[in-house]
């Protein structure tokens, strides 16, 4: 069987693997990849033994702080990061759901002040599997299946 990479390899940078296919563009949004000048390649609906199908993102010449990348755990809790240097994987990292989620997610409650005025949203994670997050303002809980990125 011919082996071939669906998404070409990068020399240095970060590969984010095991992203649920539906979450790909949310991850793009959360990490603001649309504003990057670096080479970014995406693959979606790729075969995955574990997930059935998955998405993958390769970002050349860019490494992320934990705090920055942990935000994607909200939509891709099983995502894995491969840190690449000179075509070699030098480190593997998993993402962790942060305790506080600030400014990324919209509160599901249509009557919440954060949906009426330009308020920076703040949530406390009260459960991580499945994700339940409590709005600092209206005190209502947004559940994993209701998460919308601002």
């Amino acid at each position: 069987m011919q082996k071939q990479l669906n998404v070409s390899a990068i020399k240095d940078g970060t590969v984010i693997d095991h992203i649920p296919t539906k979450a790909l563009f949310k991850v793009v949004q959360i990490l603001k990849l649309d504003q990057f000048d670096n080479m970014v390649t995406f693959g979606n609906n790729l075969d995955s033994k574990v997930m059935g199908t998955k998405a993958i993102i390769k970002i050349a010449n860019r490494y992320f702080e934990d705090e920055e990348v942990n935000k994607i755990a909200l939509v891709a809790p099983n995502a894995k990061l491969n840190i690449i240097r000179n075509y070699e994987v030098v480190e593997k990292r998993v993402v962790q759901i942060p305790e506080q989620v600030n400014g990324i997610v919209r509160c599901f409650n249509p009557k919440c002040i954060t949906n009426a005025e330009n308020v920076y949203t703040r949530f406390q994670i009260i459960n991580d599997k499945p994700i339940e997050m409590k709005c600092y303002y209206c005190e209502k809980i947004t559940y994993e299946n209701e998460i919308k990125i601002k």
Partner: protein
Amino acid sequence: MNKKNLISITDFSKEEYLRIMELSQKFEDNPNQSLLKGKVIATLFFEPSTRTRLSFETAINRLGGKIIGFSDSNSSSVSKGETLHDTIKMVSNYADLIIMRHPLEGSARYAAEVSDVPVINAGDGANQHPSQTLLDMYSIMKTQGRLNDINLFLVGDLKYGRTVHSLLMAMSQFKNPIFNFVAPPELAMPDEYKLYLSNKGIRYFEHLEFNNIINQADIIYMTRVQKERFIDPVEYEKVKNVYILKNEMLENTKPNVKILHPLPRINEIHTNVDGNPKAYYFTQAKNGVYTRMAIISHLLNLL
């Protein structure tokens, strides 16, 4: 400046609850004061609420303060499209304290962030209304002489009723409460509150009706079962008369029992209860003035 606000009932510690009780008693004994002399208090009511606004404004007047504000958003700059942020920023330059009611949930917490002066939440949508809870507690304290060891019956809409949820949270800080929940299945106490009690080792019981069991109660807290809460109107018809308190039901109740209700009442307490000395809801509303005097004095460190 270390600014204190009252947004949610859980913002106050048990010690602060007791402090409010003590101050409320002080103001009831001596209602006319000049502690707020020279101070300006803003009452911003973005939606109308006659009872709460008059109660707060009476409290301010009795403390000798001056009032600025509006009683509905049509008579404010909100009707011109001003944001809550800007309204609060401006008013906090004028007043020493802001009392606010707003239809959006979380608006009070946000206002407290924006404001340079303390904010009291007088109701943010269906979320919180902490001064109601404090006046409920003061009514319990006054009629029972204690906040520990209270057998509390919560009756009616326990699902959506914010007053019963806040009262449950606050009374759970005291020793040995017993909660009895009386509600139709559609309006039962949400699991999160039952879990909260279980985790604290507090006893609670659930009932579908209360006729045979209210002889155990120290406090019967009535709320309204609203037709619009039911998906199936037949279900409403079935239960609509189950949660109505009538005078004859009080015959074998404890001598110390008192009936509370956040008001307005529709028909859930029969008018034949009004003359019974166990009926306390109108005095409870009066207690609101003293409790609100206490809250204002506490937040502004007047005593």
